[in-house]
């Protein structure tokens, strides 16, 4: 039995589509059910639904053998995982955004204030450029922060850019091009090798087919 953690939210439907193409199907509608654990009809796979940022945690600890999560979430978690595949969906950018005219840093500001739910990535990005940063951790609606004067800049996920625009923000710099990743627990990769490799190979074929068409 291979336990797969899926991220609730924007990646869920595409993740389920991918599993369905791989022959992993469920007798009920996973995306609308209120349950969190689902056994596949093949009896060999079990899916658990968790918050996106928790996928790396479940997998790192081996509570789930594998998971599908955005690269942004995987990197932010700093979890020690096998990351064998980039999947062809969930594309978006992790970017620094600010009201028009605001740059990455202004020479007169000794420290820039940045609101984000990606504290590790943000700190690394600014520190690598020698810019002192004061992190303001928020867990949602990050684009509000500049409107209310909480921070001049934000680091957040940008998909279409519409939310930014509606809130009068623009991308200043792109930190990371993200997409969904398959992640696997290091011990499961060894102790359930046959199952894991078969799952990986199937997803790999589906992913490369999709990208060549």
């Amino acid at each position, binding site marked *: 039995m291979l336990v797969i953690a899926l991220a609730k939210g924007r990646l869920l439907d595409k993740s389920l589509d991918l599993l369905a193409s791989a022959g992993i199907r469920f007798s009920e509608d996973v995306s609308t059910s209120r349950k969190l654990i689902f056994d596949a009809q093949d009896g060999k796979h079990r899916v658990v639904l968790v918050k996106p940022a928790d996928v790396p945690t479940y997998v790192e600890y081996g509570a789930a053998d594998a998971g599908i999560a955005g690269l942004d979430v995987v990197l932010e978690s700093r979890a020690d995982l096998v990351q*064998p595949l980039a999947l062809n969906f969930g594309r978006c950018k992790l970017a620094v955004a600010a009201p028009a005219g605001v740059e990455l840093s202004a020479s007169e500001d000794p420290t820039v204030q940045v609101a984000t739910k990606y504290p590790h990535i943000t700190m690394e990005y600014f520190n690598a450029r020698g810019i002192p940063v004061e992190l303001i951790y928020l867990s949602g609606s990050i684009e509000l922060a500049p409107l209310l004067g909480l921070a001049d800049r934000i680091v957040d996920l940008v998909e279409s850019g519409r939310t930014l625009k509606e809130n009068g923000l623009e991308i200043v710099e792109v930190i990371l091009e993200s997409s969904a990743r398959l992640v696997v627990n290091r011990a499961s990769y060894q102790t359930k090798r046959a199952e894991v490799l078969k799952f990986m190979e199937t997803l790999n074929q589906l992913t490369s087919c999709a990208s060549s068409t």
Partner: protein
Amino acid sequence: MKAFTQIPPGTQILIGHAARRRRALERTICSVFEGWSYEEIVPPIFDYYDVFIKGMGTGLEEQIYRFIDRDGNILALRPEFTSLVAKTVVTRLNKAPRPVRLYYSGEVLRFEKPKGGRQREFAQIGIEHFGSRGKSADIEILLIAVEAFERLGIADFQINLGSVDFFGGIMDRISLPEGQLRELKEVLSLKDQSGLEAFLGRLSLEQRRKDILRAIPHLTGGRDVITEARGMIRNDRSIQALDHLEEIYAVFERLKLARHLTIDLGEIQGFDYYTGILFRAYVPQLGFEVANGGRYDGLPATFGEDLPAVGFSFSVDRLEQIATPKLKLSEADVADVNGEAFDRALHLRQEGKAVKLCL
């Protein structure tokens, strides 16, 4: 006051059943080590910072707890035992007949995120074997690990065995600049196929070499993996590494232990000091490795003697989550604290019986 009511993050306290289980596990493993003629070494809990820098290598030094003594020397609480033991063998034990076989058991400290049931202070128990080159010492170490698992009642375990020289031999021929080598090691250690493809796409390298690098993450399994790898490589260092692994595998087959051994040529993570074989042990119930080790011929030389060395250690805190040693509490005879109770208690103690005074 905070210090009196809270514990610092990264520490833990063992009491009652947990403490008895810890000691029972340690005793079981130590008896296996002693059964293979390893002698205990009890090294200091701190030494000069530089001693550990040699051992941990780049990247991990920030995990070391450092402090400065009154003379201005930089000291460190031990983050591992291997460097300490190697230094001792080269200095204090420089006249002792080789091979030197030592085991240790105790706490180490690393400033890392506590996870997998392991705090910043955690227990390690392991062995180091100095002075033997070649496969026999490697096999001895592996067999000791196998016996320890069996004595702990853990029947289902898997040892992943790789070799630094297999990958090293390939990289000798390709010779990438340091930045690219780091990037390659990173994608290989993540087994990141997509990242590897992107990396290879940017690299001007003949197709045959790219195919070798592409294959590395998949070279995991039984004897067939060695055969497959042989078909790909031509350099002597990698070939010798494969010969070596095959000889070890053959011995494990003969001893009917091969089911526990997985050849893993994609394993390239580990402390900088490893030079030959490299292994990690896993059990199905746990998401983290429970033991790791390997050959580190280069380490004793940094302390002044060119001496081959091989060893491994168990992560005791992780073993505790899966091993369930039988803990026999000796039934205490109760002595009444009236009249001649103390006489009776002494008498029982002389007979070797446990007593518990009713106070």
